[in-house]
């Protein structure tokens, strides 16, 4: 049995904006189905507005879909009894793009990372400190950093703290929604390697949501592409995506910026048509 089964999910939003198509229903997700196996990373690609974050929220149990089921470790996420639901939440963690607004600026790194531990485990003060120290070291920071507050960390360091918090309870699946998109290239590469390393060490599974085909390619085992709320391509072997003929996939490849100036201008023709 797969770790996560996404079964025929459809979802609509009612537009609340009065100036703008007032009250109309828009379909955000339409008959989305896929599975994630234990220890695997699925990269979910798509341009902005495709519905990726909405799907992420549905999978995290934060947005009940109008139709379909999320089966996580064999349980229906939205219809599990309270005790099962609590255990499922523990095994399902998230890291968002904006590392600064994901943390409370008045909490120390220790408090931020210890929060999920305190919710689920009865630890003494010393045990808690030791665990937070270990987690900080696992994400490449120092145990001493637990005393610092968010403003004292760079974006890349803060994202490491968000990752430490996400792995604190040894979850099974982490949803990473544009988790490296706002970092500079050096930090993107570092965080991607850290995530790969943690995945191997702890047998984690990821849903890696991004618009960036390069980042997705580096970390994922399989790749899916979403367009207008639908999965239009799903390659179990990530290298197969380059052969897809779907226009949304072609556009993703055509928009990739060159790695060397000799390749400049290649993607521009397709961008002009838009």
């Amino acid at each position: 049995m797969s770790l996560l089964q996404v079964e025929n999910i459809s979802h609509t939003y009612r537009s609340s904006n009065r100036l703008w198509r007032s009250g109309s229903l828009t379909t955000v997700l339409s008959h989305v189905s896929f599975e994630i196996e234990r220890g695997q990373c699925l990269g979910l690609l798509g341009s902005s507005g495709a519905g990726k974050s909405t799907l992420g929220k549905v999978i995290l149990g934060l947005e009940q879909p109008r139709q379909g089921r999320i089966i996580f470790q064999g349980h229906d996420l939205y219809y599990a009894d309270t005790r099962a639901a609590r255990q499922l939440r523990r095994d399902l963690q998230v890291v968002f793009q904006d590392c600064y607004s994901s943390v409370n600026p008045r909490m120390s790194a220790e408090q931020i990372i210890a929060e999920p531990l305190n919710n689920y485990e009865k630890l003494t003060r010393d045990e808690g400190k030791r665990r937070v120290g270990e987690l900080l070291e696992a994400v490449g920071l120092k145990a001493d950093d637990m005393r610092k507050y968010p403003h004292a960390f760079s974006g890349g360091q803060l994202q490491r703290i968000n990752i430490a918090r996400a792995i604190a309870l040894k979850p099974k699946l982490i949803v990473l929604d544009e988790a490296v998109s706002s970092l500079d290239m050096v930090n993107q590469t570092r965080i991607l390697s850290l995530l790969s390393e943690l995945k191997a060490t702890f047998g984690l599974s990821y849903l890696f949501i991004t618009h960036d085909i390069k980042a997705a390619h580096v970390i994922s085992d399989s790749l899916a592409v979403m367009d207008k709320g639908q999965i239009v391509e799903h390659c179990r072997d990530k290298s197969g995506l380059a052969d897809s003929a779907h226009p949304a996939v072609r556009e993703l490849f055509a928009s990739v910026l060159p790695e060397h100036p000799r390749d400049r201008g290649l993607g521009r023709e397709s961008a002009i048509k838009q």
Partner: protein
Amino acid sequence: MVQTEPVLEVNGLKVQANTPDGIVSLVRGINFEMHAGKVLGLVGESGSGKTVTSLALLRLLDRKRILVEGSIRLMGTELTGLKLSTMQSVRGKDIGLIMQNPMNAFSPVATIGSQFVETIRTHARMTRNEAAELAIAAMEDVRLPNAAELMRRYPFQLSGGMLQRVMIAICMCLKPAVIIADEPTTALDAANQLQVLRQLDRLRENNGTAVLLISHDLSVIAELADDVIVMQRGQIVERSDVYQLFDHPQHAYTKQLLQARPTLKAREPESLKEYARA
């Protein structure tokens, strides 16, 4: 090739901030030149001082806390020491700024059209209608769909990619000699990123604008820059022609930036490992 007079010349630019922990050097004496119709790439990781440099050029840093020294010459005119009111007319008309988050460049409570028209009219003698016509033509020029209709919308009703193209359209109307584009595509998805870079390049080509293209992303630099300066901790550690930079990087920091990039090519897992730490 005949070397033209630089449009913008920066000499010994230093920026220091007064902080609770004492005086901190943010930019440590940098020199560079910009030429008409050329794109100068400024690359470096976050915190290296790129944004502070661009704000110093425009004199947009808080004067009470931040000390700027050095010479900034725009077409032969020294900008440091200019009256603030004179500097205000330089901004926009002579030096345009395109910021990372385009939402910050617009007021949330006025329509795109009224802001566009007001901006044109503060720098050029024109009636409201003439300015509106110019604005619509410029928005069509950067391939924004339904330009006339967009004029009536509010900033929050446009995507980041569209707002960035409105910024470029404004620059097309004001025709500044220099444009500073500070991470103009960092907040955009790939398709919008390419579209905005394309329009920025057309603007440069049509108006002979000198562009300072700031990015942490060497792919953006590879796509558009002619020359590149590499910044680390407030200093320029390498400057060269863009091909030279990619083929024969000199400084260790440049080599590191070139290596630390996610790529579509398969890479040795070992070489990735070293980046996981620190």
